[in-house]
């Protein structure tokens, strides 16, 4: 996996990966889960933009449809990407908070 791709990573794909890290979900369940997780309610267009890109990257994969809804699950590569990104964010958060406390 090319780690440079992480540089172009914006929030919606991260939210989707984080949501799917808790188990497979379809679109509506993802929107609700992301809203609970971080207070952001993704629009359907934004959500499917993220899903399409993540699927093309091979970081999530579709499961057989349930009626007209299709659940997705995170892949092993997607887990690795999410872990790497969250680790970077944790480092950044720790450093940022440390600087604020020093003020």
């Amino acid at each position, binding site marked *: 996996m090319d780690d440079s791709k992480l540089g172009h990573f914006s929030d919606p794909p991260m939210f989707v990966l984080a949501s799917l890290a808790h188990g497979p979900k379809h679109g*509506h369940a993802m929107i609700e889960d992301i809203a609970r997780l971080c207070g952001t309610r993704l629009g*359907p267009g934004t959500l499917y933009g993220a899903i399409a890109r993540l699927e093309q990257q091979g970081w999530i994969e579709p499961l057989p449809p349930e009626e007209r809804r299709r659940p997705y699950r995170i892949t092993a590569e997607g887990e690795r990407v999410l872990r790497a990104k969250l680790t970077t964010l944790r480092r950044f958060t720790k450093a940022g908070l440390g600087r604020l406390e020093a003020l």
Partner: protein
Amino acid sequence: MNPRLAHLLMRLYPRPWRERYGAEFEALLQTGRGDLRMAANVVWSALREHLAPTRGGKINQDPRSLRFQSWCVRAPWAMFGLAPLCLLAGAYFVACFILWSGWRLLLPGTNTPFVRIDGFAIYYFGVGRAVYYGAPILIGWGIGLIAAPQSTTALWPTVGLALIALISVTAQVHASHPVPGGAGHISMDFALGHSLQGISSGLFHALMIFSLMVLPYLMVRLQKAHSLSA
């Protein structure tokens, strides 16, 4: 959301995207409230999908390229009208400079640079001639190749190509000596002709050049239409 509105919104997406996600996306839209904010989100996302497609496109597209595409949509008059004219003006300046400098350096003492030449001068003036005659065609092909993959109307690329074609057939270069024995002077003017026959002949040539310039645009558009219908 009203199923009919959900279907209409889903139809805003490009066909390859709809074939993969259309049914599930429509189902998702139908479960939502269907307010204005949701509709705006879908319209904006569909536009982005046209500009930077995930299906049949490059998903890791450089953001700079996306910004460039965005300019093609937001200011097509500048990208396909003004920018090519500026490029053509630059090319004509370079061609005139080559003519003027070649006249001073390689043909001192002659009243005009348009005389019989030999040796190195053939190559030197040949470069200027290539820039002068080649620039409109290359710029026209550039407009076509940039415009064809974009989801914009053909209006501004057509206007840009027509302007370039018209300028290229009306451009005339003049060489003169304003002061006898002094430095030569190169100037350009643009005239279609003074008689009806001259005007119609100029327009015919402009049409020929336009047809030549528009070829890459048509080829890419046809290829795009073919890949979408496949």
